[in-house]
């Protein structure tokens, strides 16, 4: 009896450990798109050049109508967006803190994100 209880507790603990590892190690694929989009009648225009960097990592630059893929682990991230014109002159720099759920694939439209005034943004995407 004691043995069974012990084994059951052990299994429960291991399952919990598994869940914890799942949450801890989940990698999200984030596609950052820099395209003009229509959202509920409002048109957000894409910038000519956007530099994207997550958590102080090296910046990735994308041009108008382009996209870039990022892989992130963990839920809370600091995102730095540098908007520039055709000649590469920086127009403005926006810093945001974003929170991710456990979804695996997330797609972000940069123009909309830039217009979003909230400091903390939650991003959800496809679970698988």
């Amino acid at each position, binding site marked *: 009896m004691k043995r069974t209880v012990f084994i059951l507790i052990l299994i429960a603990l*291991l399952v919990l450990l598994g869940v914890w590892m*799942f949450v801890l*190690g989940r990698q*999200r*694929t984030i596609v950052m798109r820099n395209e003009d989009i229509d959202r509920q009648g409002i048109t957000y225009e894409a910038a000519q050049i956007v530099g994207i960097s997550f958590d102080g990592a090296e910046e990735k630059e994308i041009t108008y109508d382009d996209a870039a893929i990022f*892989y992130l682990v963990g839920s809370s991230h600091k995102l730095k967006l540098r908007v520039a014109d055709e000649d590469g002159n920086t127009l403005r720099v926006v810093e945001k803190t974003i929170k991710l759920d456990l979804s695996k694939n997330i797609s972000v439209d940069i123009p909309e994100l830039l217009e979003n005034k909230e400091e903390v943004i939650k991003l959800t995407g496809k679970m*698988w």
Partner: protein
Amino acid sequence: MSQNLTFTEKLKNFFISNAVPILFVVITLLAVPVSGFSANYLIQEMITRIGRNSFLVLSLLLPIIAGMGLNFGMVLGAMAGQIGLIFITDWSIVGIPGLVLAMLISTPISILLGILCGSVLNRAKGREMATSYILGFFINGVYQLVVLYFMGGIIPVKSPSLVLSRGYGIRNTVALDGVRQVFDNMIPLKIGEISIPLGTFFIIALLCLFILWFRKTKLGQDMRAIAQDMKVAQSAGIPVDRTRIISIVISTVLAGYGQIIFLQNMGTLSTYNSHDQTGVFSIAAILIGGATVSRATIPNVFIGVILFHMMFVVSPMAGKNLIGQAMLGEYFRQFISYGIIAIALVLHAWRRQKDKEMERRSLRGVKAEKQPQAEK
């Protein structure tokens, strides 16, 4: 017994009982200069391979202690480890959590397979090695059935980079980018140009301690008793069959972890073939390290891994430089590695036969000597 032996006899004994490692050291010593590899490269390669392979090889120890011979059934554990890795890749769990999760997933599968393997081997006492060898092929069929037909269909695996475009079955190579060498680089250390996978070494050290401790436990003692004589152990109240199963279960679970460590270093999983050679190579390594079917120690493991893999690295190049044809070098390597295993096994079996004969003779001799002593 040993104090009666002269020095030359001792020397002879040493050479006979270490014939395989000595033979190997000689071959390697000859092959290294011919291969033309730099010292840095070889040292780096050996360190990497110790990290990559020794966990797998260590998993062989327990069944040997329990007298069950070389556990060719360790490939069962390897398959369980691979299933764990497939799942974490599908869920895209990366880094150390990913590997820990893969191990957690592999554990119950390994335990089930281990129980199966152990029970089968209990029905094939005395033929454990051949049986576990074939059992590996059998379970390989089941593994293919599961991975190639069930996964993506009955078992949910969704990632398009994993599932074949036909909708079910896993692709034949799985890139393990997310977990590539995370154990190795857990504690980064570089001496000169040589990087040392300290994290993996740490895990291996833990396993060594576990094995040392385990040998002293009641269970470990039981295993040794069973290896000595199954019937005596049985009459002494040791549950022989159960203990044998436990030793296989532990070995299988460890092999599963070992395969995960192996593959995190390799960075690529060849879905249907990565486990093929695990058993054969691990067994080759431990035999070359001087272990026998009935006796193996932790030093055997490390010596074996170094010698076996040293030959692995240098012999194709050496063969090429010696004979001048690249493919001859490749065949030469395989010939040597399989040949050595055969020789090691033959030498061991032969020696055991000799020992038996000697025992018989000395038994007679002791009896003969004893009688006059009794008169005194």
